[in-house]
Every structure is written in C-alpha cells, then in structure tokens.
C-alpha cells in the first residue's frame, strides 16, 4: 500500500499557481535593468508612479540581491533628486495591477468573498511606517493597511491580510482588477481616513489614517526595494512560491513582449524578428506572431534600443500578432544598439 502524506491546504507540493502576483521574485526585466523614468521601465509588471511631484528624480532598477537567501533580484527605487516637501496633492507609489479575470476566485461582491494575504520582503535605507493598499478599479473600492520597517538596509518579511469585499464586484474581463500598492509618499489629500475594511475610494482614504514616512522620496540617495511578493487567497501567508524563469517570462509576455534580436554581429545590416526583408518586390507583407497571446491588442509597434522600425503603408495589430504592409522594400535598418539587442516591442500593459 502506497504511503501518502496529507499537507495543509495550500502547502501541497502540487499546490502551484497560488500567487496572484506575476514576477514576484523580480527575475524578468524585459525592458532593461535600470531607468530614470517612471511607469513600467525595468522589472516586468511592476511600476513606479508619481503624481504632482515637483522636482523628484529617481532611478528604478532590477537589483541583484546577494543578502537574501533564495532570491537573486529585487525591484529598487533610488532617489536621485529629493522632493523638498510633500504637498497636499502629491503621491508616489510602487504597484502591480492584476488582471480582473484572474481575481474571479475571490468571489467579491458575494457573501462568499475571500480574504487575501500579501507577503513580501522589503529593505530600505529609511525606517518607519509605510502604507499599502488594494484598489479595486471596477467599483472604485479600496482597503488599506500598513507595515513598519524596523532596521535600515536589512531585509524584513511582511505579511498583511486584507478583508474580503462582499460589496464591490470585480468584472470578469481583461481590464484591471486590483492595484496592489506600496505607497512611498502621501500628501495630506491622500490620507487621513482609514479603510481597514473595503469602502468607496475617496482620495483621502487612499493611504489610510496612520503617520507614514515620506522619507524615501524626500531624502536624496535613499533606497526602497522589494522582492518575494506574493498575494494569495486566505488569511495565511505561505512561503514564496518560486517558479521557473520560463514560466514567469511567459506570464509577463501577456503584457509586454520584445520582438526579435539582431541577426547581424557586424553592427550593420537589417534585422527584425530574425527576419530580413530587403527585396525589391512590391506589395510586401510582414506577419509577426507573438510568442504569447496578449491581454489586449497592443496599440503600437515600438522601436527599441536604437533600432528604427520601417514606415509601413499600413499596419494591423491584434492580440496574436501584427502585419505590416508596404508597397516597396521593407527595410528594418539598424541605426544603433549592438548585436543581440532587441529591435522592437509591443505592450498590452494594464
């Protein structure tokens, strides 16, 4: 008779896919590893956002981690120009948006709504209390919480369980379901009212009612970084669910994908998605299939890393690929970058 071992729910060796966050170990960074811009710039699916900051500047990086066992990368914010003070309407945060149809299991808007638990590792040069929240877009609902960093420049694991929402309904579609948000600066308009249970978002309950530090944003050279981010159903934080790089990459490519690499190693030539079109025939079509079906049809095909995308007569873009049409030579010329650099990208980010 075979022996079997019964494990608690969610801890089975076959449990799998319990993390609602994509790229929580920060391993995939298709766009690059360092940027001075806001929005989606480095680590896939995570972005930095700011509103109304006057003189703030940052570097966001996919950081190599050597001091946290089991993790090799983090998503780091470094303040290069500090905001002198946080005015009432100012806001800065890091977030990941989760696709609505991936949250249907939470049964929000019903009496069966489930709680979720967020866990993550955080390290910062700044100690103090920070605000977090879940923001549900479809019904403009919010719940917030907080965590405290006790020791500077030391990895700390945080676990936060959020209440279930029996009122707000997350639409079953490919739009945004949740923002999972780590606030870094909150003007007075953005805080003051707690939302310990889900309620309508009214700006002043975005950040909660506590006393939160803005020092990451107001201190030059300060850093704040996270990794091992997991959001799971239930009120218990389980160990971070590691997955293969390939699995994570495929998940990320639903939202952003690089197309092709340079075929030439000499720094000249024409290349695009491992294909060169330099013929003289008229009526040329270039059909490019995406590796992964996109969340939605990308709104453009974008040049990348110094390559120039040709000027097609027409372009059609769908969730599975795109078509360029041109009546003459379709030249994809390399004007910069180096061999191996990617040529173009498409985005279907939330």
């Amino acid at each position, binding site marked *: 008779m075979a022996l079997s071992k019964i494990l608690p729910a969610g801890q089975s060796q076959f449990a799998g896919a319990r993390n609602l966050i994509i790229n929580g170990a920060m391993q995939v960074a298709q766009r690059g590893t360092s940027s001075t811009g806001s929005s989606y710039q480095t680590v896939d699916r995570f972005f930095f956002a700011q509103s109304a900051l006057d003189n703030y500047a940052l570097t966001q990086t996919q950081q190599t981690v050597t001091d946290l066992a089991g993790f090799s990368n983090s998503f780091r914010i470094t303040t290069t120009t500090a905001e002198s003070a946080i005015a009432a309407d100012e806001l800065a945060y890091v977030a990941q948006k989760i696709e609505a149809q991936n949250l249907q299991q939470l049964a929000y808007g019903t009496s069966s709504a489930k709680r979720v638990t967020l866990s993550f590792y955080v390290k910062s040069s700044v100690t103090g209390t920070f605000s977090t929240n879940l923001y549900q877009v479809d019904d403009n609902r919010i719940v917030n919480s907080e965590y405290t960093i006790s020791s500077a420049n030391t990895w700390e694991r945080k676990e936060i369980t959020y209440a279930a929402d029996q009122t707000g309904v997350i639409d079953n579609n490919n739009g945004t379901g949740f923002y999972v948000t780590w606030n870094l600066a909150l003007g007075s308009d953005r805080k003051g009212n707690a939302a310990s249970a889900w309620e309508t978002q009214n700006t002043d309950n975005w950040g909660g009612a506590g006393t939160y530090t803005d020092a990451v944003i107001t201190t030059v050279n300060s850093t704040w970084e996270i990794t091992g981010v997991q959001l799971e159903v239930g009120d218990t934080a389980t160990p971070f669910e590691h997955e293969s790089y390939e699995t994570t990459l495929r998940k990320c490519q639903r939202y952003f994908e690089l197309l092709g690499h340079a075929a030439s190693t000499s720094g000249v030539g024409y290349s695009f998605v491992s294909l060169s079109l330099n013929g003289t025939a008229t009526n040329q079509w270039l059909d490019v299939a995406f590796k992964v079906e996109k969340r939605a049809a990308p709104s453009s095909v974008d040049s990348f890393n110094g390559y120039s995308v040709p000027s097609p*007569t*027409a372009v059609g*873009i769908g969730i599975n690929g795109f078509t360029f049409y041109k009546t003459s030579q379709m030249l994809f010329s390399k004007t910069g970058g180096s061999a191996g650099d990617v040529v173009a990208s498409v985005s279907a980010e939330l």
Partner: protein
Amino acid sequence: MINFNFTSAQYVSGTDMDGNPVTNTTVIAVNADGSQSIIPANVGNEKYDHLLARHNDSDDDFTIEEAD
C-alpha cells in the same frame, strides 16, 4: 497607467495592391526618448486617440503631419 510622451507624429502614405493611394491609415510617432511607434490610425486605438486629441486641441501646438 500609461504615459504618452510623443514629440511628433506623421501619417504614412503609399498605395494598395492596385496602386490606389492609401493615406492616413498609419501614423509614425516619435517618443521623447527618440524611439518610434507605428500606430494604426483607428479611432479607439488609445495612442491614436491621444494623438488626435492633441492634434485637435487648439491650446496644443502638436499636430499630426500629413504624409509626405
């Protein structure tokens, strides 16, 4: 949350298989970092809608240039 930061845009011209002129179906836009975006000129495409709104905004000197 998508930040568009286009500095210029121009329609593309060409002909179809029968040699008939094809205009205003595609826009080449240049981003602030110098990269290009190939954008279908379809209403409902968020980037084209953004460009068109700027083009039609009398307070914004941004225009979508006609094809060469």
